[in-house]
């Protein structure tokens, strides 16, 4: 079984900013975006724990130190508050910091600079300063890392005015949304699920950050269907797609919406879809209560889609307990594809 902080994916570096279409991993797509941004804009730099010679706990930044040197790939002491606070200070004075939090769980130590400073400065200072910074948060469970190294904390950030939050699920989106984040003049939190890093997919790399077609705040219908709408993001988009595939064999036709951005939320795409299908299921790995899924449900239940709803809205999200260590308990805490299949089948069968 893989270690929580496995670095099997070590040869991250590819052709200098090659734009050749290729199949690669999510981690490499992230790294390619970082390199593109670093090459395109001298003001971009990175900071984080063990992102240099170690290559980052998950190998994402492997090779970047060699390519860009110590001034721009900055290994830091174990000081999350200072790392993020430093990034805020750097962002408001003309540079463009990218911070890697080693595990998303450690952002608890940096909530002041993120929430009280980064998210609010533009507003509090009357629009007289921009805070163009990116905070990458590797999160999620399934690696046997237990309660303090497996959290999905995105609901907190999606609740904070002033922050933007993206949670790409595909190799291409990981690349494009990160580039979009890097040219955004606001603080952007990038939620990366650790289990996605080795996921493979097609990548059309962009030559410059500006070439990214991604728009923060746009969801995508990643599978069209007529019987019900399933909304997910990050890893759970894949679980939803897998479940939809399985149900297709049973003649159940599922539409899957990948949120991609969690703040601002593209409620319109979800509402549109529900107006067509009349049924909604939302899934994520974070605990159910007061999660992003609750917001999706509330947005729909308060919209014109309400009149099209044919059944109660279902959530298949994380169990209400901290992440356990033992594999069986961990698996039971995280919504699995089989759970989705069962819930989707039941929802499709609801009498209308």
């Amino acid at each position, binding site marked *: 079984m893989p270690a929580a902080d496995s670095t099997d994916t070590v040869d991250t570096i590819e052709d200098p900013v090659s734009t050749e279409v290729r199949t690669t991993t999510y981690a490499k797509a992230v790294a390619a975006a970082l390199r593109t941004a670093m090459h395109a804009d001298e003001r971009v730099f990175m900071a984080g724990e063990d992102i240099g010679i170690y290559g980052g706990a998950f190998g994402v930044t492997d090779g970047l130190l060699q390519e860009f040197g110590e001034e721009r790939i900055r290994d830091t002491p174990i000081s999350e508050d200072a790392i993020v606070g430093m990034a805020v200070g750097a962002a408001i004075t003309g540079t463009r910091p990218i911070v890697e939090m080693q595990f998303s769980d450690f952002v608890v130590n940096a909530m002041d600079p993120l929430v009280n400073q980064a998210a609010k400065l533009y507003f509090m200072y009357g629009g007289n*300063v921009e805070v163009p910074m990116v905070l990458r948060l590797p999160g999620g469970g399934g690696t046997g890392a237990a309660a303090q190294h497996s959290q999905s904390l995105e609901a907190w950030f999606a609740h904070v005015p002033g922050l933007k939050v993206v949670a790409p699920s595909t190799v291409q989106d990981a690349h494009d949304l990160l580039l979009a984040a890097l040219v955004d003049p606001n603080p952007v939190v990038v939620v990366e699920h650790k289990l996605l890093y080795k996921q493979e997919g097609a990548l059309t790399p962009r030559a410059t950050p500006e070439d990214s077609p991604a728009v923060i705040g746009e969801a995508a219908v990643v599978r069209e269907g007529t019987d019900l709408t399933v909304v997910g993001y990050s890893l759970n988009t894949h679980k939803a797609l897998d479940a939809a595939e399985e149900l297709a064999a049973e003649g159940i036709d599922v539409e899957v919406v990948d949120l991609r951005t969690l703040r601002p939320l593209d409620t319109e795409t979800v509402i549109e879809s529900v107006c067509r299908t009349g049924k909604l299921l939302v899934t994520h790995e974070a605990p159910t209560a007061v999660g992003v899924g609750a917001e999706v449900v509330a947005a729909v239940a308060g919209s014109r889609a309400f009149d099209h709803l044919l059944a109660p809205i279902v959530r298949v999200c994380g169990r209400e307990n901290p992440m356990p260590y033992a594999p069986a308990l961990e698996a039971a805490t995280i919504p699995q594809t089989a759970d989705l299949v069962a819930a989707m089948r039941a929802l499709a069968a609801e009498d209308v």
Partner: protein
Amino acid sequence: MPRHDPTEPSGALEALTTMWTIRRFEEALEDLYSRGMLHGTNHLSIGQEAVAVGACGALEDGDFITSTHRGHGHSIAHGADPEPMFAELLGRETGYCGGRGGSMHIADVGSGNLGANGIVAGSMTLAVGAALSQRLLGSSAVVLCFFGDGAANEGSFHEALNLAAVWELPVVFLCENNQYGMSMASDLSTAGGSVAGRGAAYGLEGVRLDGNDVIAVAEGVATAAAAAREGRGPALLEAITYRYRGHSKSDRNLYRTQDEIEEWRTERDPIARFEARLLEEGRLDREAIDGARQTARERIRDAVKAAVQAPEPTVDVLEEAVYARR
């Protein structure tokens, strides 16, 4: 070269005028408050003017400051215009923050004032980042980071000093030790008994200054800033001073004696001391000194007058106020 040298007549005049401007500014706030024109809360630095003025005067144009919840003095000393400051405190559209920030968030980023901060020690790590930017952008500017004695017990203090030190960044950390957090005496909250003494933990010298002597502050900061500018890394300074007013409006001053306040006010007032010294050393005459006070009073009077007439912001600004656009 420092912006003004308080040991020279012209610099002394400027320093004195600025100290008076700060004091009159805050007295005007008290007046506005008592007349029900000011809402929210604010924190007055009356008695601490020598720190702000000595320190900011020792900077060069283009240098940055980060400030605190008790930041009016820092702003004015760094060159902020009292009128948009009043306007901000009055919640007006013409305020530095368009009325969105109030006392604890006055900033003037264009002039290098990275802002007050409502979070104790919240700006200390920001100062480190601003200093890193300078290095990355090839600028020789330094960052002066004001913080309080109470802030020295926050984790951010520790992380900021350590990071600035390992990266050898041009930050001058200046503790305004006014001897109390809110109600807690610095002696009781700060193990080891001295903020400057904590410099050694980061390989920094740590220097105590008489915070009620504008010249001592100016010299201390000038020395530290010059070293930082030359690439010799951060500095930790501690200026001993005192606030006459309560922590904020709700303070009943139960944690200290009236005698203590009176002693500081009568024996060590930074403005009175500076004036006496200037006269004694013959660097400014009585007329010049009275002129400084007069200039400050007029500046503040005019600023208040203009600010109270400024319009209030309308709700429609909120829509576009949260996110910057590309």
